[in-house]
């Protein structure tokens, strides 16, 4: 078997390495001469065998001769076994099948890694497999253990398709464990060994792994120990996941003086000298891993890829890419990018030829910077991305997903074009002005941010939850148009220079918030606030506080939200971030004036908002519209309907110029305007407005989208008000059907729809049929988590009470009404206009029972509220009329007649209430005539 006697070393340096038994025989000096010669010739050519042989000799020298394997230990498994991983320091006792760790049942050992032992286990509660990592107790002690647990919690909050999900962290017998997603597949190393891969296979894998890493970076997590073993490929669907975030233990000193010592191979150079891990050090490990992987590919990678990886491997972390996204963009062949570059170069060339003299070079430098920066931050809405988003949308199985995708696609395409156009024009502006003024820099910063924000949103759209699909259009619209950046005046300052990492994190969190993923966003936002404060980055602090305020607002934590928005506004003013300042003041005004109901302070904040918006000049157009909408709402809340209508008109006009007619017509502003018309009794205008609202929603979102259902409900309400309950019922039924398909059981709007349906059925006199529908609405509303449950519940109760009263279920009616009234009072909302309706119904029931004093008491209170402006005219008239009846019963006849006449006049102003009018006339003629 040995090529004995061959004299030519090159031919005898056998292709195949001798196996361990043969090398061991040589090392232990028990090999045959022929065998020895063969091995000598092999190791002359094969350093790895030589080093192995030398190592075996060294080990033999130091006394550890091979001894026969000790046979089984005396007593039975498992208790008698020593640790799996033995020797010094604290180590694990091995776990055997059906042992438990926390609530998890161990199934088998999967492997042993640097940080501990990994088992496959079963989570009996959720009936799924998990991987359990038992961490080495000697590495994680005391404060470090606490830190790890905190980090594990942070990791558990990070949920991304390309990151192995951490489910749980805990300690058992003082030993830390992590429960994480079990990935049945191969590590990158195994994947590469399984069969030869092509460069494009590897690059596709790199995109996935890198996307996971980027998501973690945005959430403020660094990996610290990225290597092929931590990149997993799932066999079932080929998805790539990054695992073991933050688990690397960096406290072991790296031995420098030992000849065969290994250092962690993929570690960035700066970590070897003790610098703290960063996204940049992860980037290094990522690039080294991918460089090696490409080395094993069947074909060879294009030069551009190698160049990008080399940049990621630069010794100086600052010379690497700014972030993973930029790196991934460089690892992605993109025709758009080249086209873009071409456009820029021609633009520069043109200007350079026209221009002359000394500052040419300076200009060219300036320009290169500008091009480079924009290109680096460029947002791509290319066909591959579009495809991913489409697939992501359709995967949610939302019935409106296709339509939602199409509209989002259209919008993003438009934004992409705007971004390119704006970038191009911005550079030309900078050039023709000749000076790199602050304005030019401010424009460039603005464009770069616009691109970052769009990119962050697209990342989320690529793997969306249903809620994201539902909100996609709104989320795109909530970002400003890149064209706004062009309107930044020459005197504007660029604002603070911000750490790009924080900026990217912010963009991601903002995208999460805008797509309704509030719970996922909150922890990150809080972390970002404190990081910005630590780094004294007031611009980011302002933005993060603004997001925090919005999230708190969503959770009904109004005073916390107000405080966050206030701090955001202050930080924004301090950092001259005018756009943020304007938004923060706007939010604060809405929160204080509309939600909390402090009209005076609300107005003050609105004035501050106005100052900020005016300072923005033309670039703040969008916010001018929002300011008008805010003023309309404040006026609505305070009962000044005419002023509200004026402002709403202005807001709608701004929206039309900014977003085009469809989006404007389908906006909240359009709806508010319709309702304002209705409340002022301008029925035709209201109807026109709201029907346009409905059809614009259909056009934008399609017939299956919850937003369209909302449009149907609004028109249904209008039809109800104008006395067309048959048409109203049809709309409401359609809305109920759409919402049942599109939204979960406990969505408040499903209860609203159900309630409106009941009302429209009730309006047609089918009271018995309406009752179970209304009760169902109440049941749904009671399941709504937290906000806006109580508001919803009391509204349904009022309607239920009214229905029960009509069915002469007086006890039930009084019960429902009292419950509603006490909910208002508990919330400190004793002056809420809707309260008037509950009181009115109670009054009617008391009247029927001849409890005139009780009736008079509640109706008096109802009238006070109704006159405050909250109720529909028809309802206000009804309150007056009921009170008139109560007063009549109390023998206060003059007062009673006066009120009844007032009621009749009021009802004449409103339309479609001839029945009620006839009732009043009859009552009056009976009293006056008789």
């Amino acid at each position, binding site marked *: 078997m040995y090529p004995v006697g061959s004299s030519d070393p090159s031919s005898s340096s056998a292709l195949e390495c001798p196996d361990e038994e043969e090398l061991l025989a040589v090392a232990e000096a028990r090999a045959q001469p022929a065998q020895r010669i063969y091995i000598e010739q092999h190791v002359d050519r094969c*350093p790895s065998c*030589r080093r192995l042989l030398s190592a075996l*000799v060294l080990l033999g020298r130091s006394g550890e001769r091979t001894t026969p394997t000790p046979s089984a230990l005396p007593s039975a498994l498992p208790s008698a076994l020593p640790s799996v991983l033995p020797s010094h320091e604290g180590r694990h006792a091995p776990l055997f099948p059906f042992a438990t760790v926390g609530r998890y049942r161990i199934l088998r050992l999967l492997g042993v890694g640097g940080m501990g032992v990994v088992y496959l286990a079963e989570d009996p509660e959720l009936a799924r497999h998990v991987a359990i990592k038992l961490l080495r107790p000697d590495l994680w002690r005391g404060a470090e253990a606490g830190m790890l647990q905190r980090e594990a919690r942070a990791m558990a909050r990070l949920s991304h398709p390309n990151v192995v999900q951490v489910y749980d962290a805990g300690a058992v017998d003082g030993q830390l464990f992590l429960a994480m997603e079990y990935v049945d597949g191969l590590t990158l190393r195994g994947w590469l060994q399984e069969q030869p891969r092509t460069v494009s296979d590897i690059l596709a894998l790199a995109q996935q792994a890198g996307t996971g890493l980027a998501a973690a970076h945005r959430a403020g997590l660094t990996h610290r120990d990225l290597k092929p073993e931590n990149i997993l490929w799932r066999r079932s669907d080929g998805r790539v996941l990054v695992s073991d975030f933050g688990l690397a233990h960096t406290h072991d000193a790296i031995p420098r003086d030992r000849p*065969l010592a290994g250092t962690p191979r993929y570690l960035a150079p700066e970590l070897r000298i003790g610098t703290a891990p960063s996204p940049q050090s992860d980037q290094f490990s990522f690039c080294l891993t991918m460089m090696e992987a490409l080395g094993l590919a069947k074909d060879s990678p294009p030069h551009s890829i190698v160049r990008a990886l080399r940049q990621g491997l630069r010794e100086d972390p600052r010379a690497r890419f700014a972030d993973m996204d930029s790196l991934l963009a460089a690892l992605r062949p993109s025709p758009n990018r080249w086209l873009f570059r071409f456009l820029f170069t021609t633009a520069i060339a043109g200007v350079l030829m026209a221009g002359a003299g000394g500052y040419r070079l300076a200009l060219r430098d300036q320009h290169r910077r500008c091009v480079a920066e924009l290109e680096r931050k460029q947002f791509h809405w290319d066909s591959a991305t579009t495809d991913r988003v489409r697939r992501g949308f359709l995967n949610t199985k939302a019935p409106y997903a296709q339509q939602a995708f199409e509209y989002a696609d259209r919008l993003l395409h438009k934004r992409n074009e705007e971004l390119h156009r704006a970038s191009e024009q911005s550079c030309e502006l900078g050039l023709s002005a000749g000076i790199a003024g602050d304005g030019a820099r401010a424009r460039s910063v603005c464009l770069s941010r616009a691109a970052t924000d769009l990119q962050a949103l697209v990342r989320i759209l690529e793997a969306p939850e249903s809620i994201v699909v539902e909100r996609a259009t709104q989320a795109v619209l909530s970002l400003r148009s890149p064209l706004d950046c062009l309107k930044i005046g020459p005197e504007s300052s660029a604002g603070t220079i911000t750490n790009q990492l924080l900026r990217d994190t912010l963009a991601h969190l903002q995208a999460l918030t805008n797509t309704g993923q509030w719970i996922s966003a909150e922890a990150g936002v809080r972390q970002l606030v404190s990081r910005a404060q630590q780094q004294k980055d007031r611009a980011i602090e302002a933005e993060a506080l603004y997001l925090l305020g919005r999230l708190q607002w969503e959770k009904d934590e109004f005073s916390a939200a107000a405080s966050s928005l206030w701090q955001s506004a202050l930080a924004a003013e301090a950092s001259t971030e005018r756009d943020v300042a304007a938004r923060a003041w706007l939010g604060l005004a809405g929160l204080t004036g509309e939600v909390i109901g402090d009209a005076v302070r609300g107005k003050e904040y609105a004035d501050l908002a106005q100052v900020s918006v005016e300072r923005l000049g033309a670039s703040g157009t969008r916010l001018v519209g929002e300011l008008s909408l805010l003023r309309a709402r404040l006026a609505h809340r305070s009962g000044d309907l005419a002023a509200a209508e004026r402002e709403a008109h202005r807001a709608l006009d701004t929206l039309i110029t900014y977003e085009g007619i469809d989006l404007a017509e389908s906006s909240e502003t359009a709806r508010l305007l319709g309702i304002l018309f209705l409340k002022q009794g301008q029925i035709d205008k209201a109807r026109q407005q709201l029907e346009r609202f409905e059809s614009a929603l259909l056009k934008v979102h399609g017939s299956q989208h919850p937003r369209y259902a909302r449009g149907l409900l609004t028109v249904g309400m209008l039809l109800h008000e104008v006395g067309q309950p048959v048409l109203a019922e049809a709309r409401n039924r359609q809305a109920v059907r759409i919402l049942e398909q599109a939204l979960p059981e406990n969505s408040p709007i499903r209860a609203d729809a159900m309630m409106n349906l009941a009302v429209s059925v009730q309006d047609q006199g089918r009271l018995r049929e309406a009752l179970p529908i209304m009760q169902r609405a109440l049941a749904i509303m009671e399941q709504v988590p937290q906000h806006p449950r109580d508001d919803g519940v009391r509204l349904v109760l009022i309607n239920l009470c009214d229905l029960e009263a009509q069915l002469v279920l007086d006890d039930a009616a009084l019960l429902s009404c009292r419950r509603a009234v006490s909910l208002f009072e508990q919330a400190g909302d004793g002056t809420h206009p809707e309260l008037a309706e509950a009181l009115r119904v109670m009054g009617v029931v008391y009247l029927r029972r001849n409890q005139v004093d009780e009736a008079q008491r509640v109706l008096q209170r109802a009238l006070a509220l109704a006159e405050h402006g909250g109720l529909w005219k028809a309802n206000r008239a009804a309150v007056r009329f009921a009170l008139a009846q109560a007063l009549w019963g109390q023998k206060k006849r003059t007062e009673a007649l006066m009120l009844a006449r007032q009621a009749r006049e009021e009802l004449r102003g409103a339309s479609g209430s001839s029945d009620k009018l006839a009732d009043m006339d009859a009552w009056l003629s009976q009293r006056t005539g008789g």
Partner: protein
Amino acid sequence: MMDVATPFLNALTVASQTELAYSAQDHAQLNAVLHRILQAAHAAWPSIALADDRFLSYVAERVIPSPSVIPFPDLMQRLEQLHTSDLFLCCACADGNDRAIAQLQSTTFPMLDRALARLGIDPQRRYEVLGELIPHLFVADDRKPRIASYRGKGALQGWLRAVAVRHALASVPQLQEDDQALAVQPGTFDLEAQYLKTQYGPLFETAFADALRSLSVRQRNLLRRHLFDGLRIDDLALIHHVHRATVARWIERAREDLARYVYQQLSKQLGLQQKELQSLLRAIRSHIDLSLSKHLR
């Protein structure tokens, strides 16, 4: 006594692809030896269940290294020398017996960890190497699991240690080694070596690489092991079955050959004066260890 020899010989025939010539007496002797082997294996691993015929055919596949013919007495001798109880454990592991895998881990991994520690591998990396070893040893990929390639010639512990060390070394980056080699500096500042380096840098490098190629395989390996792997003269004496004085002489000779070769090359090309040549030779000698550590990887 049950006949286990016949199935064993059948398995052996398949493995060696040759019919073995033997007598009835031989058969009885073989049967007895196999029974002894079985008894010892079961005694060594009482808690591991493994069918006798499966184990014996596993041994049969390994007792002869590759398809070949050996006389019956040789077969018997080999069987006697084979670490069959170790093979028993490995066979169960290769068959995916969890209990056997756990036993093997618990009885051998402490030793592997100590061995890696002595090679200067840090705890983190040791943990990783041992962890990577588990799937490597026990999980069949496209072929057989690695544990199946242990043939029982030496003790299992030694084989496992070699496998572990190979694995650990493979993951020490080449780059690292370069760095280490380049980082080796002469103990004291040597003006002549410095001069040589700056004056004749590239020329010297070429000459040195040629000189290295002119040495014999044994000389090259000696120098590498001695200067790079850190083996002492005694260790080298052991490998080569010679007295330590002989190894010392070999090394001295190899160095001198190298220095002479480089000197000849350089003096031919540079046309230096006698005095300069003397100085050059001194410089070459003092520089040689440094360069060796760079070249002899």
